[in-house]
């Protein structure tokens, strides 16, 4: 018996409501592919994706499946497997709204919510067309610069996510999650109203009993529910557990080039029972 809310992958997917602002972890942070499939099966609509700071196959699939209305990101890419075809198509044909950003801005907007301050200043950005296309960003005179008082600096709004889902290697019996060095997951969790996690395994210990493990932990304080999902990141990799599945990624990259071949790929993909304990 565990001392936390243990739920299923399907139940997590049901928590992702139409039109919600969904936190998306980067390809290296534990991509929750098992839940992504269930979201697609649910035919969830109007999702707004907030990527920290980018997305890969997860975002591309959600877009291709028609679940997404808006994406705020620094990049969508399949990495070594090329551009993200469904994302490209959706932007080129105005099927989704794109809020182009840059990695540190995506971090700073969540850090603002983490501290419950309304905004964060950030250097850079000025003179870019990113700024021109973001009416939620502003420029102020640096209020600290008493000497010249004409330095311009960008301020970014605090962003609070409705829901965050990520995949991790382990949870303990008290619902604490091992995130290792992937501390951007902590920032995401701190800035999200709800947090659900899928894990490869639940271990019979408390990470806080060991200082080293505690340092690698996201406390259950921030976690609303955990599901077991073996291979839950597949075909993405998971640090210290498994590598990215090159064949599958290549296959996806090729299939996603056209909507028809993407749709066919997805029919097969969904039919496969590649993860356990849904």
């Amino acid at each position, binding site marked *: 018996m565990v001392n936390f809310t243990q739920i299923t992958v399907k139940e997590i997917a049901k928590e992702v409501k139409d039109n919600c602002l969904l936190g998306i972890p*980067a390809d*290296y*942070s534990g991509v929750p592919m098992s839940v992504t499939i269930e979201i697609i099966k649910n035919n969830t609509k109007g999702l707004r994706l907030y990527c*920290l*700071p*980018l997305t890969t196959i997860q975002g591309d699939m959600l877009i291709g499946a028609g679940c997404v209305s808006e994406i705020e*990101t*620094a*990049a*969508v*890419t399949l*990495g*070594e*497997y090329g*551009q*993200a075809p469904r*994302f*490209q198509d959706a*932007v*080129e*044909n*105005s099927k989704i709204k*794109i809020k*182009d*950003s*840059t*990695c*540190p*801005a995506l*971090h700073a907007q969540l*850090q603002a919510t983490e501290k419950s301050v309304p905004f964060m200043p*950030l*250097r*850079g*950005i*000025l*003179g*870019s*067309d*990113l700024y021109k*296309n973001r009416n939620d960003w502003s420029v102020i005179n640096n209020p600290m610069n008493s000497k*010249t008082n*004409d*330095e*311009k*600096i960008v301020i970014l709004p605090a962003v609070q996510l409705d829901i965050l889902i990520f995949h991790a290697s382990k949870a303990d019996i008290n619902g604490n999650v091992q995130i290792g*060095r*992937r*501390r*951007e*997951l*902590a*920032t995401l969790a701190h800035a999200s109203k709800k947090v659900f996690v899928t894990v490869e395994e639940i271990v019979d210990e408390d990470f806080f009993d060991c200082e080293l493990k505690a340092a690698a932990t996201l406390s259950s304080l921030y976690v609303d529910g955990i599901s077991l999902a073996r291979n839950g990141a597949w075909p993405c990799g998971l*640090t210290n557990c498994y590598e990215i599945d*090159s064949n599958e990624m290549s296959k996806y990259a090729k299939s996603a080039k056209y909507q028809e071949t993407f749709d066919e790929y997805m029919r097969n993909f969904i039919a496969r029972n590649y993860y356990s304990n849904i």
Partner: protein
Amino acid sequence: MSEIFQSEIIISEISNLLRNDRHVAIGAASPIPGSAALLAEEERKNSDSKLKVTILHSQKFNNFTDGSRELFDASAQGRIDTFFLGGVQIDGEANINLVGTGHYPKLNKRFSGSFGSALMYFVVPKIILFREEHSPRTLVKKVDFISAPGISPPNVYRPGGPKYLITNKALFSFNAKDKNFKIEKINPEFTLDEVIKSTGFEFKTNENLKYFTMPSQKRIDILRNLIAPKVLNFYPQFAKKLWFN
């Protein structure tokens, strides 16, 4: 195995640009800069001026423990000497476009996005622009979208910026005051005229124009025996194609 690949020559050239650095960081999708940085690190291993290399997409060569924001924080703190940026398009004032071609937001061809360029380009002292394809469609008069500008007015905090641009045909330096590139080295397989014709912007020519340096056999050995296996770990597709096919 004695044939030297073009990519290896570029790796070698980039490696030379890192001579005085203490810390080089390598971002997403940068196998050639990554290989160059690891080569420089290896060659200086037993010297007094060691080079630290942080490769974000590697586990072993990633020195960061504060999550993915640490690259940007550390750069803003001035702790990273060199970083690489690419571009769908790069123009004569060193503006870079990582977003796509056509009229934003409804682009003709959308690319992945600006990544961290809109901060990194401002704060890292030596930004090396790297774009293998050297053609009028990559090196343009004016980019369609500015992911990050090459130069900034004085009321913008900007300790960093572009210092070099390297392609498969040439190495340029950038002068922020004059707002232009100057050619420094040329790939011996091309003429200056060919380079001019394949560049969409005007650049300063150079009386002392040099050729790309052929890497020594010793360097090639280091690259193939010591660096290639490391690169295989975090850029497997690239490494397999170049060295392990």
